[in-house]
Every structure is written in structure tokens, then in C-alpha cells.
């Protein structure tokens, strides 16, 4: 109780000063660009989304001489906490300030108005726009469509599996594209679909044992290619699939090259890449060059913002499959195939 009353006394005496006042906004104009990332739940080390954003910041630090800072959310926080975090980052002279994930949309809308000279990056959301907001979005369904084509071609049993981390609209885009890709390639193929958890339980993005159990279930039902769009939980699915000697398809980054999965790499047929790191890097670069991106910046197949990784030699050796994937890619880029975004 003693500490609490001390805290109360502090709050009572120190009113009127904002944490954001302490930022040194004057120094930022001296040449060096400061960029900041506010992470999604999970933070750095999630082997997926947040890590990809960090990779972009790191690249900007190395190549553009940018000073980067990062901030992580607390569990169970609300919009007010996000507003406070973004405000503190903007006031400290960071430009751009990038919010990773759709949860930052309402907060960015508010803070962007208060800091019209700062560019705000918002990943995975176009619902809130403004002159100083760059909406960095991806056509995940297009990359997933190609994965569907590859899965249908590689499957011998005619049954393939999709594992989604958490049942949210974003992951449903992955499912929609994958299922369409499979069905367009082999109308008779069966797609098993499973989601690991329901929001607000986001364990489905972080617990590999959940992915492992789900993959085991699909393998038992005859699936021989499994695509897991489940962040860190997906590595469990890859492990189970590889141990059974079947094909796994990774997500977000090229998981064939991921150190933690080296033991199973031979069974990672390909990965659906989503170039979050490039989008972060490009935004920082545009601000540094004095031509900040604004509005919707879309990364699709056409710009290689999403795509299929080809680093596994086994992938390239299946020439018929590679040809089918390349043709599908061309058709999507040319607009001959429109990929659905909802299943």
C-alpha cells in the first residue's frame, strides 16, 4: 500500500507535464533520420510478421544511416495506450513512425492528425487514410493462390491441408487464395481447412504445439501437402509434416532458409513470401529522400511484394509444377485470374 500511495502522491504533484514533452524534436531536423516501429502483439522474435518489419528497419539502419527505435505493446492494452506510444515516438522526432498490424489503425488516425509533418506507416490496413498516412498492404491471396497451384501439383493423394493461425479476416485471405489455387488446378482435390484458435485468443500465432497437432490430424486424413499460415505456430506444422515425409509450405519469409527449421528444410517445398521488410525499408527511404509515400501502397505479385520462394532445389526439379505456377502468376499479373479475398 505504501508504494501505491507514493504513486498517488506523485501523480498529484507532477501534473501538467506530458511524457512526450521530453522528446527532442528539435534535433531530428539536423539531418539524421529517425525511424520508429511500433510492434504488433508478439513483438520482436515472433519469427514472422514483427521480425520482418524489424529486418526492414535494420536494413534502413545499415544502408541509409537511419537511427531506428522500436516499441512493443503490452498484453491486453487498449487504443489509448497505442495513441500514447505513437505520440511519444512522433514527438521524439521519429519520421516515419510505423504501426505494424491493423490494430494500430484507430490510433494512427488520431496521432497523424496531431502530427501532420510526420509520416505514419500502417501495415495491413487501408480503412484509415490521410495525407501523411501510408497504408502498406499486401495481396496475400495472390501468393497463396500460387501455393495452391503448387500444392495441387505436388500432391499424390489429392488431399491437401490449410492451417490458419487465428480465424481473422487477414488469414482468411490466405485460405481463400490457397483453396482457389488448388481447385483451379485440380477440381477434384480436397482441401482440409483448420484454424488453431479464435480471437481474442492469439495463441494460434505463437504456439507451435497447436500447429503440430493440427498438422498431425490432417496427415492422418491423408493430406500430403500442408500450408500453414500461422506465424510461429506454423513451425510446429512444418515439423510434423516433415517428420511424416510429406510436403510443407511455409509463410511470410522463405522458411527453407530459416535457421530454426534447418532440420526440416528438405521438406519445405516452398514458402509464400510477404515482403513486409521491403515495405518498411521503402517507406523509410521515401521519407529520407524527401518524397514520403502516402495513401495505399500495395504489394502484389506484379511487384514481387508477395510470391513463392524457389530456394528448395526439389521445388525447381518439379518442372511441370513450376510451369503451372509461372503460368498462374502471369495470368494473375495480366488480370486473367482474379483471386478472391474471402473464402
Amino acid at each position, binding site marked *: 500500500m*505504501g508504494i*501505491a500511495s507514493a*504513486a498517488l502522491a506523485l501523480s498529484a504533484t*507532477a*501534473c*501538467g507535464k506530458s511524457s512526450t514533452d521530453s522528446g527532442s524534436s528539435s534535433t531530428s531536423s539536423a539531418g539524421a533520420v529517425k525511424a520508429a516501429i511500433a510492434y504488433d502483439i508478439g513483438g520482436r522474435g515472433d519469427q514472422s510478421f514483427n521480425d520482418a518489419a524489424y529486418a526492414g528497419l535494420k536494413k534502413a539502419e545499415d544502408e541509409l544511416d537511419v537511427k531506428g527505435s522500436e516499441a512493443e505493446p503490452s498484453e491486453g492494452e*487498449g487504443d489509448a495506450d497505442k495513441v*500514447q506510444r505513437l505520440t511519444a515516438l512522433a514527438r521524439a522526432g521519429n519520421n516515419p513512425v510505423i504501426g505494424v498490424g491493423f490494430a494500430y489503425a484507430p490510433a494512427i488516425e488520431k496521432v497523424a492528425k*496531431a502530427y501532420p509533418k510526420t509520416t505514419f506507416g500502417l501495415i495491413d490496413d487501408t480503412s484509415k487514410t490521410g495525407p501523411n498516412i501510408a497504408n502498406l498492404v499486401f495481396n496475400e491471396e495472390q501468393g497463396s493462390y500460387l501455393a495452391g497451384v503448387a500444392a495441387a501439383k505436388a500432391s499424390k493423394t489429392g488431399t491437401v491441408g490449410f492451417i490458419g493461425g487465428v*480465424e481473422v479476416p487477414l488469414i482468411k485471405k490466405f485460405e481463400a487464395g490457397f483453396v482457389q489455387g488448388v481447385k483451379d488446378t485440380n477440381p477434384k482435390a480436397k482441401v482440409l481447412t483448420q484454424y488453431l484458435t479464435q480471437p481474442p485468443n492469439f495463441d494460434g500465432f505463437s504456439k507451435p504445439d497447436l500447429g503440430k497437432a493440427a498438422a498431425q490430424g490432417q496427415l492422418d486424413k491423408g493430406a500430403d501437402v500442408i500450408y500453414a499460415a500461422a506465424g510461429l505456430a506454423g513451425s510446429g506444422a512444418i515439423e510434423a509434416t516433415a517428420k511424416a515425409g510429406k510436403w510443407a509450405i511455409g509463410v511470410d519469409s522463405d522458411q527453407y532458409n530459416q535457421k530454426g527449421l534447418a532440420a526440416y528444410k528438405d521438406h519445405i517445398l516452398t514458402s509464400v513470401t510477404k515482403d513486409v521488410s521491403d515495405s518498411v525499408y521503402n517507406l523509410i527511404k521515401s521519407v529520407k529522400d524527401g518524397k514520403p509515400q502516402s495513401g495505399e501502397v500495395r504489394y502484389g505479385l506484379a511487384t514481387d511484394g508477395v510470391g513463392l520462394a524457389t530456394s528448395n532445389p526439389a521445388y525447381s526439379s518439379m518442372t511441370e509444377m513450376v510451369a503451372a505456377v509461372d503460368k498462374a502468376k502471369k495470368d494473375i499479373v495480366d488480370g486473367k485470374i482474379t483471386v478472391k479475398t474471402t473464402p
Partner: protein
Amino acid sequence: MMKFDKDKLIIGAAGPVLALVSSFVLTMLVLLATGLDPIEPIRLMIDNAGFSDIQVLIVNQTGIYYLAALAVAIGFRMNLFNIGVDGQYRLAAMVSALVGASIELPGPLHILVIVLTAMLTGAFWAGIAGILKTTRGVSEVVSTIMLNAIATSLVAWLILPKNFGVQPEGSNNLTTGEIAESGWFPGIDMGEGNGVIYGFTFVALALGVVYWFVLNRTRFGFDLRATGASESAAQASGVDAKRMILTSMLLSGALAGLSGMPTLLGETHTYSLDFPVGVGFTAITIALLGRNHPVGIFFAALLFAFLEKTSSSLDVAGYPKEITKIMQGIIVIAVVVSYELVRRYGLRRQQQKVGEELAAGGALKTDKEVAA
């Protein structure tokens, strides 16, 4: 007389203080063990508490925790462990947001409908556990945990766009639609960049007074505490224990439902996938730490809000903000241990004193004191 009261107060405060001190010491040891400066993060947190935007966050979070902890405490007083506060809170926030977004009424009425919906939903969800306990003897610990999981699935299903949810154009979020401005609870604007203190925070504090009054100054409160202390004894003196169980479960659920209101009516005006979760679990610790007393709970809620909000920027300074999680976790264990230690000490001390006074020939006086 006075001395006896002072003793009671000291013994009452010793438990939480012992728990807090040991949690701070252990957290510092953890920091030392990981090779970090143990003092600097604490200093940074105290610095942060001096900023008014952080203060606003602390005040608002205190209100939210206070409501949820009152919900837990009312169960504790009745010897019921409502672990389902989190589920009741989420379901109530979701359903009331849905109702609030689908109707439009003049200001106060609109807010009243939303608040009542939240209370009824929370009470309904907790009431299921209450009915299961009174009719089938199902432990409320088990049933409320299970109801939490069911609430998660139910909310996830209700919020699908094909049911009642809305997916805003270009967003990857799902919401229940925006509540019209007439249903926003007015707050106190603390100036540009500092945020707004939710008006509902004051409702939360007022409910603390109501809680105290009902429990300590009404027949119902007496029955509730009596049943909590001994169900069979209460039954023998004419209290319908089953009815008390159900009623307190309903009250607990209604309060749990209210704990979503500061956020919903003051900030988000919609229930979405990123609506804050876990409030109901933190509240259990807060109620324990506050010894189910409205004033104790207030300080415990304030402490937890302080720990959370002042630590949120520690990672920018290079310190893991998870240290507050460690601190909170240790508090839970330490509270249980220290309360037991203090209770035993108090008991021994009382016996000692009675013994001393008896030996001094003051038996008559002691009798009076004990009776008082």
C-alpha cells in the same frame, strides 16, 4: 479500545506491504541475475508516473480494474471464486456494443440502454454458473473457467460478418459497428496529447461506495457475509444459502459486465478483435491484494495500473517491460503467503494478550473487550 483497533489496522496492512516488498526485492534479484541495473527501471517508471499523459492512462486503467476487482471481491465475500469475470466482461462488452450500435436514442437513455445490456449480459453469463452450482452442485471454479472458453467462441462467432459483425472497408479488423455519438460517455479532456479521463471512472468509484454500503450496512450484505463465512450456520439462522449464491453470482456478473464500459463508452465506441482482454484475470489478483475491501481494492487497482502504464516504454530504454509481469506474478504468491503468516501472527498475539490480561487478573475487562 483504541490500541486494539490500531493493532488490527497494522496487521491488516502488514499482509499487502509484506507482499509488495518481497515482490520488489525478488524482481530486483531477477534483474541482477540477468545482468541488468536493478534500480534504473524502477527510477524510469517513477519518472514516467510524473507525466500527465501516463497519469491519464493510469487513472483510466484504475477505473477498469476497480470494477472488475469489485466483481471478483463480491464473489470472494460469499466464498465463491468467480474466475469467469474475463469472459463475462468480454461477452458483455461485445453484446452491449452491438445493441448500442444498432439503436439511436437521446443521450442519457442511449448510454443507459448500453450499460443495462452489459450488466444483464454479464449477470446472465455468471448466472449460468450460479444455477449450475445451486441445482447440480457444480463447482463455480470449473464452470466459470469453461464459460470463459465458451464466451471466446461465442464472441468469435457473433462477430463474423455473416452474423452481426462488420468488417470496415480496407480493414483486417472485425467490429460491431460504431456506436452513435449519443451513446458516448462524456469524459474530462486533459488537454492536447494528454488524453481524456473516462467519465465512467467516476461511476466505478461511486460503485465502490455502494459496494461498501450494501455489504456492511444492509441485511442483504450481512446475509452474504454470513453465508460466505459458514453456509450451514447461515442456513440454520434462516438464510436461504442457495438464493444467496445465485444472487451474488448475478451481482458479480453484472459488475464484470460494467468493467468493459469505461473502454467501450469512453474510447473505442465499438467492440473489435483488439478489444483489451485479460482484465478479469488481473482483477483476481487485485481483489486478493485489496483484501476484498473497497479501499484496499482501490489502492491495489491503482498499483497495478501504475505498474503497467509506467513500464510500457521501458523497452525503448533497453529494459524488459515484462519485469512488471514478474512483479505482479510474485505479488499473487506473496499475498497468499504473507496473509497466512500475518493471520497466524495475529492469532498468536491475540491469544498472548488475552493470556497476559487473564494472568494480571483483568478477566472481567478482557471479556468486555473480546465481546466488543
